[in-house]
């Protein structure tokens, strides 16, 4: 088989003695969606934050295209074309949609001045695709609804041609229609060859959208399964019992 796009190997990270992620290994192939499942506090967000540079893991190794990489901060991750939609969205509430979309990567004119016009035009362009009902381009994002804020965070992750996309509960604040649009977006990005980690509480959605699912419990990996090989009940069993389904257990 081809080289994985991402290999997370034996990742460990503890907070004050509590092992939030304990020796977890998962990989991700180009054009693949891997779901991360588990109860609240299982360690899903913490695991992907090691990949996005938000946290520095205590031990373990990350490989991109088969090569070991150092990810010490979010800038390192961005330089490796890793984009992340955080569960908290990580928006600066006092800035507008365009300023958030381009935060840290502002477009500037030849003289180094912030190019508001171009950033707004680009924001309108991508929002047209992601959320055509979005209108509040001039307002600070704190004035936006949960769904609108979420679409700004999604737009930011998609705009910069990521190769590796991390989505931590991207539809938590979205209505059914917007959720469907995100599902379509994921499928489109997958076709373009991106690798996607998708954290979602909706087992049905994970089974539908993901090629494989990794289940975590108490910081440990329960197992990684192909979604075609398991039922939703099997996945639920893995989440609750922390055991592989019987027909797959070795």
């Amino acid at each position, binding site marked *: 088989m081809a080289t994985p796009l991402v290999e997370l190997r034996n990742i460990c990270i503890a907070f004050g003695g509590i092992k939030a992620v304990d020796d977890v290994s998962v990989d991700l192939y180009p054009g693949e969606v891997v779901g991360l499942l588990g109860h609240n506090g299982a360690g899903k967000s913490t695991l992907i934050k090691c990949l996005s540079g938000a946290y520095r893991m205590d031990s373990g190794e990350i490989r991109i295209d088969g090569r070991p990489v150092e990810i010490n901060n979010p800038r390192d991750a961005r330089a490796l074309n890793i984009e992340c939609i955080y569960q908290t969205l990580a*928006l*600066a*509430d006092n800035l507008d949609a365009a*300023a958030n979309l381009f935060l840290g990567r502002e477009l500037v004119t030849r003289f180094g*001045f*912030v190019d508001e016009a171009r950033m707004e035009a680009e924001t309108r362009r991508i929002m047209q695709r992601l959320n055509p009902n979005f209108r509040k381009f001039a307002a600070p994002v704190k004035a936006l609804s949960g769904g609108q804020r979420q679409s700004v965070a999604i737009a930011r992750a998609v705009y910069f041609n990521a190769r590796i996309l991390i989505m931590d509960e991207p539809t938590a604040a979205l209505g059914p229609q917007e959720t469907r649009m995100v599902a379509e977006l994921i499928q489109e990005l997958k076709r373009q060859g991106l690798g996607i980690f998708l954290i979602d509480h909706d087992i049905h959605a994970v089974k539908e959208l993901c090629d494989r699912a990794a289940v975590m419990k108490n910081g440990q990996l329960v197992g990684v399964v192909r979604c075609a090989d398991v039922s939703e009940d099997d996945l639920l069993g893995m989440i609750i019992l922390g055991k592989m389904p019987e027909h797959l257990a070795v």
Partner: protein
Amino acid sequence: MSPALRQSLTLIGFAAVAAGFALALPDTFPTARNLINIAQQSAMLAVVAASMTIVMAMGDFDLSVGSMASLAGVVAAVLFAGGAPVWVGVAAGLAVGLLGGIVNGVLVAVVGILPFVATLGTLTIFSGGAFIVSGGKTIFGRAIPAPFADFARGGVPLDALGLEGLRLPWLSLTAAAVIAAVWVLLERRRFGRHLYATGGNAEAARLAGIPVVRLRIAAFALAGLGAAGAGLMLASRVASANPTQGAGLMLDAIAAVFLGMTMTRSGEPRVLATVAGVAVLGVLGNGLTQLRVDSYVREVLTGAIVLAAVAFATLGRRR
């Protein structure tokens, strides 16, 4: 309170006070000469307040600017007294400001001390340093080179505008240049965008790859530089330097920024709004002095204005 109401209240209050002064002092208040006077008296405050806006944009603040202004003035004056040329004294004063600002930034951003505590500490250190450097004395007279003192007295003649004998002071022009530079930095450069983002959500800024630690150090460094610049302007204006002459600038600068915040739509610090805040304080100070109101009463008023402005700004945010 609606933002529009909050924004206009400050301006309405300001207009009312200015109109009151104009009525009470028809011959001396609403004149071109007096306006130029106010612009000159307020120049130092404008510089400190504009640079204070830089740190306040990211939600921090700097209590040490007043004592830094004193320290920079004293350092320059002591060098002058030792025979150093003007540029050496000025450069040394500015360098001290930059360095002190970097110390503030490191204490806040690297060590992680709250800005209030860190800059209260350095306020004391800079203030003590100013006493040590000057030996507790005022440096004046022949020690201060004439070109340095003349700077504050000079300006661009305004005869062409029909204002015979009046000059637009260099001090005011310097302040205008600083304001313009801070405006470009905050409103048109990525640096400013990153400062406001950090003020809005420091963690989001970090996750967006913004080097928040370096950014904070740079902002405090600029605040220190601005404070030192104002200290030198003040020393030039009074043609002397003593270790406490900048002390009043800190509270006034914070007051100006907060007053400005009541005038912006978002309730955020914006440098042009800060300038409006400086104008309010400048007009108030000038009018009250002309009315012979005791300077301690003015201090009470300034304190009350700060509190009222903070209260407004807080109420505006809590919607």
